[in-house]
């Protein structure tokens, strides 16, 4: 018993000692757990709170509303319209197969379209919206609405989309929008930021150039979602900002007339304010309907546009490089005057052709013009005269003047990425580009705007405007609030050495249009209100052989691709001029018969519209 009890005591001592050790161990472990809790919940609380919000809150971005384009008078030329769409959330549909086949019947979907929808459905989650149709006609939309009772889960939706109310009229200025592709997203930060599936972005033209101003910002919906991504409740709706509305300097009426004049022809018309540089109209023909691209162009339509021999995709005003032909003559004459090579009394005898450096150069008039002075040479567009002064002037001096007046370089800088430089050749250029010396014969033909020289219609328009305004530099613009790019000191920089030389050229151009024997006399307007001065041009697209010269075929007898381009530059009204224009009709035959009559119709409208344009201007000032 004593033994046993002493053993008991020992046992108790042992167990109590060990209990004490265990107790202390427990204490430390508890302290460990509590400090861990403290660390997570108090010290790192912010971090985990953020993570928890990241878990549960998800944002849905909606497509932003794109800014509009307005013309000078506030007419919408690229706007937004309500597109009728049909959305289906497959999860909410009891019998998806039934509904989708029912929709196929109602919408008369083709098999390929139908397959596309089914493919899309397979790729998305059942609670994600499936767009069955993105632009329904009103008839089909209302038809669906009438059948909604047995289309459970189908949602008719009105969504905002791009619309070009004047169809093909402004395509080459504004361009068009279409679904953003990977390149668009990669290249533009704002597209990446605002991207939502189906977002439409500018692909070409001003739509592309001003993407960042037009795009706007997304509406953002914040939802609480569960671990599987299902929306539980909406937490917030953040309204996005509509893109900036851009006002253009163009006049829709004149633009429409330009389109009408060039109907079924390939070519370009552009009209410019000679003081402000505002582009009043700028049209390249043929054009195409930009609305076709908004929801993705169909293969058939695309092939039609792409394979058109008149090349509707080409913006001829900015991209078309043409020999200026006789429209260069004002610059040649001006250059010769400025450099003191000739004066107004300088006379050349034209016999219809001239022998220079073992080559025969022909004047357009076989019989020749006889003795011609500068004014008459311009008026009748005598080639012999200009061969002679070009020879005396030399190509380097000529190119200097031509470049000064805006030929051979981009008019809008980087505004249109497709714009081409054109080419004003000189001896240095030829050595660098072709590695050959300049031939004197090449100077001769440059004098009548043939040979290497290439200009775009917009450059010709700028040149004409700068002659018309008395020889001062202007900065063409198409966007009204585009001032910031031009330094005030750049305004009214004279481009001439002697202002009288400009007057001489203006007078010669007046003669060309308004006096008997002038090349565009038939297109003149006698009413001083509309009277304009111009210069015709006919640009050869190939060298005329001796045989052809003898045949002397009429334009209609020559195959289309070999016909000459018809050009015309003009400004008006002659007294107090305000507007300049350039017209190019590809393979139009002859400047005086094809292009100049268009100017007559244009000037009538331009001058009539001038007062309305002015009244808008005054209103603008009054408002300030």
């Amino acid at each position, binding site marked *: 018993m004593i033994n046993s009890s002493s*053993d*008991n005591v*020992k*046992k*108790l001592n*042992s*167990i*109590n000692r*060990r*209990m004490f050790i*265990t*107790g202390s161990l*427990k204490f430390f*472990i*508890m302290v*460990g*757990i*509590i400090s*861990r*809790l*403290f660390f*997570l*919940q*108090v010290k*790192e*609380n912010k*971090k*985990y*709170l953020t*993570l*928890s919000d990241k*878990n*549960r809150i998800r944002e849905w971005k909606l497509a932003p509303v794109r800014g509009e384009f307005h013309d000078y008078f506030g007419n919408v030329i690229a706007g937004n319209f309500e597109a009728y769409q049909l959305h289906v959330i497959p999860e909410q549909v009891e019998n998806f197969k039934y509904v989708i086949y029912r929709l196929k019947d109602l919408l008369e979907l083709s098999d390929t379209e139908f397959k596309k929808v089914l493919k899309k459905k397979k790729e998305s989650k059942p609670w994600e919206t499936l767009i069955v149709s993105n632009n329904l006609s009103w008839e089909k939309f209302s038809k669906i609405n009438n059948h909604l009772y047995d289309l459970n889960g189908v949602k008719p939706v009105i969504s905002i989309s791009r619309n070009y109310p004047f169809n093909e009229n402004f395509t080459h200025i504004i361009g068009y929008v279409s679904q953003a592709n990977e390149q668009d997203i990669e290249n533009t930060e704002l597209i990446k930021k605002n991207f939502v599936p189906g977002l439409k972005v500018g692909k070409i033209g001003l739509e592309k150039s001003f993407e960042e101003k037009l795009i706007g910002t997304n509406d953002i919906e914040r939802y*609480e*979602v*569960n*671990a*599987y991504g299902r929306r*539980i409740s909406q937490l917030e709706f953040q309204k996005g900002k509509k893109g900036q509305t851009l006002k253009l300097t163009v006049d829709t009426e004149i633009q429409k007339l330009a389109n009408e004049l060039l109907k079924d022809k390939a070519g370009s018309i552009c009209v410019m304010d000679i003081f402000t540089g505002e582009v009043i109209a700028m049209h390249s023909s043929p054009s195409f309907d930009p609305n076709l691209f908004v929801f993705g162009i169909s293969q058939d339509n695309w092939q039609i546009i792409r394979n058109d021999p008149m090349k509707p995709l080409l913006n001829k005003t900015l991209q078309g490089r043409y020999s200026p032909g006789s429209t260069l003559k004002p610059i040649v004459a001006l250059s010769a005057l400025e450099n003191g090579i000739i004066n107004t009394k300088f006379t050349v005898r034209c016999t219809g052709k001239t022998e220079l450096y073992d080559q025969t150069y022909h004047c357009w008039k076989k019989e020749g013009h006889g003795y011609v002075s500068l004014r008459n040479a311009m008026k009748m567009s005598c080639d012999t005269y200009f061969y002679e002064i070009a020879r005396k002037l030399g190509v380097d001096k000529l190119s200097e003047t031509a470049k000064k007046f805006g030929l051979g370089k981009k008019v809008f800088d980087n505004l249109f990425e497709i714009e081409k430089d054109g080419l004003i050749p000189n001896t240095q250029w030829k050595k660098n580009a072709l590695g050959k010396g300049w031939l004197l014969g090449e100077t001769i033909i440059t004098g009548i705007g043939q040979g290497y020289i290439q200009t775009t219609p917009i450059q010709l328009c700028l040149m004409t405007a700068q002659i018309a305004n008395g020889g001062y530099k202007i900065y063409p613009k198409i966007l009204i609030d585009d001032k910031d790019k031009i330094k005030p000191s750049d305004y009214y920089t004279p481009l001439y050495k002697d202002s009288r030389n400009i007057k001489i050229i203006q007078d010669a151009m007046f003669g060309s249009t308004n006096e008997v024997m002038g090349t565009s006399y038939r297109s003149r307007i006698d009413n001083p209100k509309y009277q304009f001065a111009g210069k015709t041009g006919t640009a050869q697209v190939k060298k005329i052989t001796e045989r052809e010269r003898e045949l002397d075929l009429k334009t209609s007898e020559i195959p289309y691709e070999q016909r000459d381009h018809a050009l015309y530059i003009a400004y008006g009204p002659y007294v107090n001029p305000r507007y300049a224009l350039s017209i190019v009709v590809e393979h139009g035959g002859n400047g005086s018969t094809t292009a100049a009559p268009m100017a007559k119709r244009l000037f009538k409208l331009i001058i009539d519209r001038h007062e309305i344009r002015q009244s808008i201007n005054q209103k603008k000032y009054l408002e300030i």
Partner: protein
Amino acid sequence: MYQHTRLTNNNFTFFQKFRNFDYILLICILLLGFISLTTMYSTDGGKILFHTKSHFTKLMVFTIMMLFISFINIKFWFSIGYLSYIVVVSLLVWTYFFGITSSGSKRWMDLYFINLQPSELMKIFIILCLAKYFHRMKLENVNSVYTILTSLIIILLPMGLVIVQPDLGTSVLIAVSGIAVLWFAGINHKYFIYTMLGFVISLPFVIAFLKPYQKLRVLTFLNPDKDPLGAGYQIIQSKIAVGSGGIFGKGFLKGTQSYLEFLPEKHTDFIFTLFSEEFGFVGSVVLLVIYIIIIYRIIAIGANSRSYFAKLFCYGFGAAIFVFITINMSMVLGLLPIVGSPLPIMSYGGSSMLATMIGFGIVMSARVHSQQLIA
């Protein structure tokens, strides 16, 4: 001598038994039950659904059972020490052959009204068995080779049966329960130190023998961000839930991590995460304090028991409960790899609660019959 007769008086009246109850322990257990019920209500999304109802029923039945157990003399529990162990071992064997397979392991036996998980019961009955084994043993015999071998067999047998289910977590907890008793029984501490050292040294080899999914858990614990949506998902989401709770929590029924189903296993192993998210640091500490009081009362009851068996059982059970709690919490707080281990009383699961309540019942019985000597 008078005192002696009083102390050896075995005729406890019903009223006396009531008086001898440890009311602090009882209140804490009921409080814990209440907290677990509200938390379960929250996991059901603030509605009384299946889990809440089932948990409530179990809580009621098992609490009554616990009270019933406490009225039974501690001598009885001593007498069935070996028997109960043998019964549970046979249940484990039965499970091995006829158990229900669920999510890849065979842990449950179908009792028609309840699916019993015998491995959970073993956590308690191994303590009972070893406490009985060491009760009569003289201290000098405790460290004999025979004793150590026998007790190791007692521990390793159920462990092995549970490992093959496979259920590493529970088998480790069974081992911990058994080892706790060995420790209190006075087995030389150098054995523990050697075992620990041996374990640490052999750890890399053990890992090499683990099943791929178990290996993944260990690796995930070491670096959960390696595969945040796969293996690391549970622990990352659990830490986010706890951490975002802050000092006062997101509020009852407002735990976004659990409501939006980011939390895995929120009814069972991760119930503390949900509680901690909704009630924050303060709530978690309060819960911990309740657990600490329970453990403290268990130890106090052991200390006041006259019989060595009761002492051993209480100390062993107290240590085991402590380990269950800390392992579960360390796991959800990212301090230990994920092993399946429920939080006593809080977690949903009948077998675990049954075992815990039996444990509490025996402890309470030890309290009620604290003066009972066992020959």
